[in-house]
């Protein structure tokens, strides 16, 4: 049946492309989570009334975030070529897409982190201060746990954006399902291959969404 519908699809190619997409996505999600969380915390903490209220630091962080968020992803990849080459030693393959994916994703996630942190009840932060908390304790035991459901839904949205970035990264020969659909499907006019890659990408997106929603809901005791 599959062979009739998708005569040009080879299973082992698909497995390899899917693996590449999953690899790029998971590593870049992990990297984006860490970098985005740091940037988001910095934005929030240095903001007005924050624990480290600091106009200059806030301005610098916000500027970096805004500038990188404004650059279209395809251009970001090209801009980062020298950096990627230096960092990864190559500009081809799934690994070469990672710097661009993380640098493209982190500012986006940072804004979501900032929004999530702003939703944390000021009263609870104040209660922690009244108990004699260190800032570190407030960050790790109040701010992050209390905003965790929103941080998880934020990384889910970001992960889905990253999956589509991985497909774009295909144009620089990063590999993965987007790359495969373009070079082996579109360019050879094998549209069944394009369709099959699309289906796989949609399934991956759904799985990420499902896991994200599930974890976020599980953590939310409100």
């Amino acid at each position, binding site marked *: 049946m599959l062979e009739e519908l998708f005569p040009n699809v080879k299973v082992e190619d698909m497995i390899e492309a899917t693996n590449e997409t999953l690899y790029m996505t998971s590593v870049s999600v992990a990297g984006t989570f860490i970098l985005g969380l740091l940037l988001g915390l910095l934005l929030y903490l240095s903001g007005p009334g924050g624990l480290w209220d600091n106009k200059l630091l806030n301005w610098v962080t916000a500027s970096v975030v805004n500038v990188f968020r404004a650059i279209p992803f395809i251009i970001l990849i090209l801009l980062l070529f020298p950096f990627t080459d230096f960092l990864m030693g190559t500009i081809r393959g799934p690994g070469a897409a990672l710097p661009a994916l993380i640098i493209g994703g982190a500012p986006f996630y940072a804004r979501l982190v900032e929004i999530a942190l702003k939703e944390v*009840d000021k*009263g*609870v932060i*104040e*209660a*922690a*201060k*009244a*108990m*004699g*908390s*260190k800032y570190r*304790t407030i960050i790790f*035991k*109040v701010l992050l*746990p*209390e905003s*965790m459901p929103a941080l998880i839904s934020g990384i889910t949205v970001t992960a889905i954006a990253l999956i589509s970035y991985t497909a774009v990264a295909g144009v620089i020969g990063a590999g993965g399902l987007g790359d495969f659909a373009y070079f082996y499907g579109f360019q050879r006019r094998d549209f069944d291959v394009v369709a099959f890659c699309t289906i796989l990408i949609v399934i991956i997106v759904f799985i990420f969404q499902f896991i994200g929603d599930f974890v976020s809901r599980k*953590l939310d*005791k*409100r």
Partner: protein
Amino acid sequence: MISIKNLTKVFHTKDQDVRAVDELNLSIGKGEIYGVIGYSGAGKSTFIRLLNRLEEPSSGEIELNNQDLTGLKKNELRLARQEIGMIFQHFNLLWSRTVFDNIAFPLEIAGASKKTREERVNELIELVGLSGRGNSYPSQLSGGQKQRVGIARALANNPKVLLCDEATSALDPETTDSILDLLVDINEKLGLTIVLITHEMHVIRKICHRVAVMEKGKVVEEGDVLDVFLHPKEKVTKRFVDQVMGDPDREESLHLIQENYQSGEVIQLHFVGENTNQALISDLSRKFNVDINILHGKITQTQKGAYGTMLVQLVGDKLVVNQAIDYIRTTSVEVEVDPNA
């Protein structure tokens, strides 16, 4: 225990400077339940937040536990705060933590071992009457139960002082009373000094030993709760006293009474912190041959006994009525003859 000198807090806002707390002087004794009452905007919250420096004073001094709080550096302040419990109007519990873990939080901050934390939390859960609810999340509790968690959390590090910022204002009257009872209970059991702020005279009446009335950042009247109830000097204070005595239309009802009860003598009795003479009425009717009609009145209970006024009509032989009135004068109940005059 707590001594406050010339404490001032000025907020600089865009259009003006707000003197939220203005040259405030107070001293609060050890083991006392001290109430601060005032209308919204009087500066109560700012005042109580100055006591643990959640708000930095603009000027003035706070001495707490023989420690100059205003001079403490950041790290010293953190340690001092661990000895000052605080509870809040909206409880401010962490929704992501269970009851148990919420109460354990201040112990984690103070660096207590896991074993110590467990013992102490179980003790506190018991103390505030939440046995069996340790694994619940705040969202599964009623308002009163949430405040109990708040109280347990505030007590975790054995503080010397408990600050209460409108701790019962979000609760219904019945729950309010049960929380107030709990506060009295821990005040007596632990000898804890409690400073509470409220806009409800009921709260002051029910549990406070002393009260300060705040208006526009200043304390306008201060003293033993009973004294303030008896001899309110300021207009605000009178309005607060009326809140519990519910007597704003007394003048009018006196007229009606005078018209309707022409015979005998209408007198007003003031019960002022009575424990001994509460049975005055039955005492009178036993000792003298008079009929006593109770016309109007309200008696309420404070920490120092019964307080209130009562209008009664004494009907009988003129001489006996006068004897009865003279008798009342020998008791500690104050009597006012012809109160409408």
